[in-house]
């Protein structure tokens, strides 16, 4: 891993309007460049807004869409991580995120866990991603998770086993009330979860959550970057738009992985064996002796 300056762009996208959001991306790219950032990270579905419902096919892009190519063009001067709707083969629509660099697409992550409960209905509008991979960014190996993916510890674990030392977590997290002395309740829950993820995976976590309102939902912001010791190295306040820059240091990563050699000691083979056994039990599959 090389030292890298990452800008967290906490924006309020315009619902159902990729063109307007492309302009908002361009403006944030300009600010991030002025702050000498190497990478700028946007929230989940930053190109489209969140509460899309039947607008999903209208705002979906493919790699040959004009808006998609304009988005890639933004990455000529700074690497861009952002969320959008991608249309795949068979006209399946994905809640996706891309890493773009030097005007080219480096990696696509399709959200694996689509919350479809309570106030969420993503499973109705999107197809789930079936792949979770780390990728080589110019500064080092990284992984992307989208919102609910981060609530399944296996996602962060897999990306880190696959070599990621930086996890980008893009989110459109609505708030759900306040409590005396604690402010907005959803934010400390997120922050605890992200801190635990950073510490347990000994990885940098860069969390970018959107702000703004859609119908009555309001999105909490509170974006932050956390180092592998669990320390906050950049943060943005709740509810307002803003940009913060975090410096991710390979030296800190090396020390954390030396002091807490969790990655070194991880027994992937044991996990694999036990998972296979659990899988056979859960789905009543024939065991190896049946062959």
């Amino acid at each position, binding site marked *: 891993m090389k030292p890298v300056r990452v800008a967290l762009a906490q924006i309020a996208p315009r619902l159902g309007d990729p063109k307007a959001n492309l302009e908002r991306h361009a403006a944030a790219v300009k600010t991030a460049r002025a702050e000498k950032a190497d990478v700028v990270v946007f929230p989940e579905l930053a190109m489209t807004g969140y509460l899309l419902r039947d607008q999903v096919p209208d705002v979906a892009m493919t790699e040959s869409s004009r808006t998609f190519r304009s988005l890639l063009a933004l990455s000529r001067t700074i690497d861009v991580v952002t969320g959008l709707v991608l249309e795949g083969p068979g006209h399946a629509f994905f809640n996706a995120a891309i890493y773009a660099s030097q005007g080219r697409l480096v990696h696509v992550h399709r959200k694996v866990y689509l919350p479809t409960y309570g106030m969420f209905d993503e499973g109705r509008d999107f197809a789930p991603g079936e792949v979770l991979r780390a990728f080589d960014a110019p500064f080092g190996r990284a992984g992307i998770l989208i919102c609910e993916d981060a609530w399944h510890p296996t996602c962060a674990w897999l990306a880190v086993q696959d070599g990621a030392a930086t996890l980008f977590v893009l989110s459109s997290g609505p708030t759900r009330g306040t409590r*005396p002395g604690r402010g907005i309740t959803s934010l400390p829950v997120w922050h605890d979860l992200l801190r635990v993820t950073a510490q347990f995976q000994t990885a940098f976590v860069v969390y970018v959550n959107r702000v703004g309102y859609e119908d009555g939902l309001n999105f909490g912001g509170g974006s932050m970057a956390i180092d592998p010791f669990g320390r906050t190295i950049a943060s943005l306040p709740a509810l307002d738009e803003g940009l913060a820059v975090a410096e991710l240091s390979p030296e800190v990563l090396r020390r954390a992985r030396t002091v807490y050699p969790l990655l070194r000691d991880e027994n992937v083979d044991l996990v694999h064996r036990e998972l296979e056994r659990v899988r056979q039990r859960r789905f009543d599959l024939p065991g190896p002796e049946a062959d």
Partner: protein
Amino acid sequence: MSRRLRVVPAAPAPEPDLALDPKATARILEGFIRSEVERTGRRGVVLGLSGGIDSALSACLAARALGPERVYAVAMPYRTSHAGSRRDAEALGRKLRIGVEVVEITPIVDGFVAAAGASSPGRLGNVMARARMIVLYDRSEERAALVLGTSNKTELLLGYGTLHGDMASALNPLGDLYKTQVRDLAKAVAVPRSIRLKPPSADLWPDQTDEGDLGFSYDEVDRVLALLVDARMAPGSIVARGFSRRLVERVARLVVRSQFKRRLPLIAKVSTRSIGWDFRYPRDWKS
């Protein structure tokens, strides 16, 4: 000698939790009002000011969100309305520096009664609520403003409101706050004591109070609703926690019976794409 371990009791089950952070809640609601006015391209909001706590708090949040010059309040007394209601509304208008127009609804309501009749107090109350709705929607057209509703979560869940009357609005910032939470928030944003401390009343006839109409206090019913709705507890479990069975069953029944008031009219599906079924767009569509 045997050593006995000290036994630490388990933490008690969480109480109905109605406490909120007033500052953070007010900030969310002010942002909500501002965002909706801006994205709809309207100039401001219009709301009815009754002299009660819900409309006072709504006006206060709107004035903080938009600036007082973009909040148009209307006091709409009927001849039986308490004289203090109008005084409180006008005093609040001066305090918030928002304009308060007074529109007497007596001729509208009495004209309706003369032409069409309204024999029971309940029906007359509905006519008054709908007369006020007509005035507000007319003024919203005149001012290019959104109608700001003032219903709270307790009223909405119990169905204690008039459909197409006080329940009609474009946005309803207090709709997810129970009455007791409205009181906490009103105190924090400095709604005057005279408004906060008077007994809640629809003011449709002399000496009417909400708690008299409903037959229970807001303190009680809000705690039951917080368990029933927010904590998703079964009525039996709520009774087991010490609430009266009569109260819990009555509240549960009122919530079910008033469901029709919280939904758009039903549409029978006779086409391939029907409003409410598979024509699904957010209200903030393309904004």
